[in-house]
C-alpha cells in the first residue's frame, strides 16, 4: 500500500509535481501513466525517499519509507535509469545490495535465476544491454521479497519476450497480494498489464480509476457521418456548441460530443439523407492522447498534432 498526500515538488519556479495524491492498493497492478516529463519518476523516487517533496508526504505500508527497519523487504524498486555501477558484475551488485539487509547468497542466486541472468551474472554491468540492465534492476527489486514493488518503465529496452515476461511477473506479484506499481508512457502497455490507472500530466493527476473507466472517459462519443448534404448537416450541428466536427480525407465527417442517435434524429427531422452513420471507438492511444494532450511538456517541434488532438473533447478533468 502506497499513500501519497499532496505531493508537491518545485525546482526553483518550475513545478514538477503539483498537489499529487493517490493510493496504490495491494493485490492489483496499478499503472502510472503519463508522457515523459510528467513527473512519474520524481514521484517514484519520492516514494523511496530519494527525492524530497517540497511539501506533502508519502507512506509505504503505513510509514515513510526511511522509517522502515528493513526497507528492501517493504519495497523493491526498479528505477528509471540504470542505478548500478557499470564497473561491477551483476552478481556482486546483488550481493552488495543483499548484504545491507543481511540477505544471504541463496536469495541472490534465486533472483538471478528468476530474472534469467545466470549466464551474465559474472559479467560487468557496463556491457549489459538495456534489457539485461532492466532484468538486473528487477532482480535487485525482488531481493527482499518485498510486499510492494515499484517498477519505473520496466519494459523499456526489452525484447517482445521480455515485455511479456515483465507483464506476467507483474500480474503474478499482484496475485500474491503484493502492491504493484508500474510506470509507463505507453498506454497500450498499461492497458494490457494494469488493472488500475493513475494518469499523470504536467505534475497533476489527470485520472485515477480502473483501466476501463479511464479509457471510456477519455474516449467520449464519436460518430462518422457520410451524406450528400454534409454542408447542411454541418450547419445544423454547428448550433450545438459541444460538437466538434472534422472532415476526413475521403469526405466523411467525424463528430465528437454527439451520439449516433442524436445525429440520426437531427438528420431525420430535417429530411437529410445519410449514407453512413457509424459510432467510432477510439483506440487506446487516441484516448490517452486526448487525456494528456494539454499536459505534454515537450511537443515535437513543428510536426502536426496527431489525429486525436484535432478534436478537443472535454474529457480531461
Amino acid at each position, binding site marked *: 500500500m502506497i499513500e501519497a498526500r499532496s505531493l508537491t515538488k518545485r525546482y526553483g519556479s518550475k513545478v514538477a509535481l503539483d498537489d499529487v495524491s493517490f493510493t496504490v492498493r495491494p493485490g492489483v497492478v496499478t499503472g502510472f501513466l503519463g508522457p515523459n516529463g510528467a513527473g512519474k519518476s520524481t514521484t517514484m523516487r519520492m516514494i523511496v525517499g530519494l*527525492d524530497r517533496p517540497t511539501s506533502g508526504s508519502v507512506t509505504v505500508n503505513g510509514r515513510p519509507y526511511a522509517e522502515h527497519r528493513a526497507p528492501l523487504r517493504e519495497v523493491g524498486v526498479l528505477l528509471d535509469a540504470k542505478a548500478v555501477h557499470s564497473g561491477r558484475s551483476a552478481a556482486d551488485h546483488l550481493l552488495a545490495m543483499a548484504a545491507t539487509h543481511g540477505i544471504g547468497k541463496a*536469495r541472490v542466486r534465486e533472483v538471478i535465476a528468476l530474472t534469467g541472468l545466470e549466464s551474465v551474472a559474472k559479467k560487468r554491468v557496463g556491457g549489459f544491454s538495456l534489457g539485461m540492465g532492466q532484468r538486473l534492476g528487477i532482480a535487485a527489486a525482488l531481493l527482499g521479497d518485498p510486499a510492494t514493488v515499484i517498477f519505473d518503465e520496466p519494459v523499456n529496452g526489452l525484447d517482445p519476450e521480455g515485455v511479456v515476461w515483465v507483464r506476467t511477473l507483474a500480474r503474478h506479484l499482484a496475485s500474491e497480494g503484493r502492491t504493484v506499481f508500474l510506470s509507463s508512457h505507453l498506454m497500450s502497455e498499461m492497458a494490457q498489464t494494469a488493472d488500475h490507472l493513475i494518469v499523470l500530466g504536467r505534475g497533476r493527476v489527470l485520472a485515477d480509476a480502473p483501466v476501463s473507466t479511464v479509457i471510456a472517459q477519455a474516449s467520449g462519443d464519436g460518430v462518422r457521418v457520410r451524406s450528400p448534404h454534409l454542408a447542411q448537416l454541418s450547419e445544423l450541428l454547428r448550433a450545438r456548441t459541444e460538437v466538434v466536427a472534422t472532415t476526413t480525407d475521403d469526405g466523411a465527417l467525424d463528430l465528437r460530443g454527439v451520439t449516433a442517435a442524436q445525429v440520426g434524429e437531427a438528420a431525420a427531422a430535417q429530411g437529410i439523407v445519410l449514407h453512413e452513420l457509424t459510432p467510432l471507438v477510439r483506440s487506446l492511444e487516441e484516448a490517452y492522447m486526448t487525456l494528456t494532450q494539454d499536459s505534454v511538456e515537450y511537443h515535437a517541434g513543428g510536426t502536426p498534432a496527431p489525429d486525436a488532438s484535432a478534436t478537443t473533447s472535454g474529457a480531461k478533468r
Partner: protein
Amino acid sequence: MSTATTPRTTHAHATGSGVSFGHVLRSEWIKLRSLRSTAWCFAVIVVILVGFAALGAALSSAFSSTDATPEQQQSIAVTIITFGSPFAQLVAAVLGALVITGEYGTGMIRSTFAAVPRRTSALVAKVVLVGSTTFVVSLLSLAAGLLVATPLLSGQGIDVDLSDGRLWQSVVGAAATVAFTAMIAFGLGAIIRNGAGGIAAAIGVVFVLPIIFSIAQGLVAKAWIYTLYEFTPPQAGTRLYDYPVDGASMISMPALDGAVVLEPWQALLVLVGWVVVLFGIALALAKRRDV
C-alpha cells in the same frame, strides 16, 4: 533468456534482519573490492611505496656520510622509505574521490540510498573502509619498502635499527597520512559528487595547495604563511612521519622563525580535523540532497 513462463517469486531465502551498521559495512566492503579501480589504485600505491624505497636506498650514496650518527642514519632511512609518500597520496586521493563519485556518476548511489535510506551509515561505512584499507595497504607497502631498503642501505654504510620505536612510529605515520588523504578526498568527492571535479579538488588539496603556499612563502617570507602551509594535509602528514634529529628535519623545508611547527600528535589532530570537517559537510549535504 527464456523466462516467459509463470515466474516463481518464492522467497525461501529472503530472510535477513534489516539494515544495521554491520550489514552496511559488509555491503560496502563487497562494493569496494568488486571494482577494478580499487585494485588498480592499491596496486599502484604498493608499487610506488616499495619502488621508491628500493630506488632511494639503491641511490642513497648521496646521503651517506661516514660521520652520520646512528640517529641521523635512522632519519635517512625514514626519508628514503617515505620517498613515495606524496605520489601514494596522489593515488589515494583519486581512490577516495572515485569511491563516492563513481556511485553518483553511474547512478549506483540511488540503489545505495534506497537500500540504506538514512544514508549516514552508508557514507560512514564507505569512509571507514576507504581509510582503513588504504592504511593497511600503505602500512604493508612501507614495511616491505623498509625491509627491501635495509640491506641496500647497510651496503652504503647506513645501518637501520629495526628495533627503534621511533622508526616504526614514522612508518605508521606515513601510512596514516596516505589513509587520511584518501578520506579527505572522499569528503571532497561526496560534496562535489562529480568524478572529474572531485578528483581535481582532492589533487588541489594534496598537491596544489602546498605548492601555492611554498611559492607564496618564497615571495613574501612571512611566518603566518608558513603556518598556513603547516596546516595543509600533506605538510601536516609530513610532521606525522618526520624523523627530525635535534629539531632539524630532512623531509620538510625549514620553518620560519615564529611559525607554527606541528608536533606529531598535533599533526594527527589537524588531519583528523580535515576529515571531520569535510565529511561532516558531505554528510549534511547528502542527507538533504535529492539523488
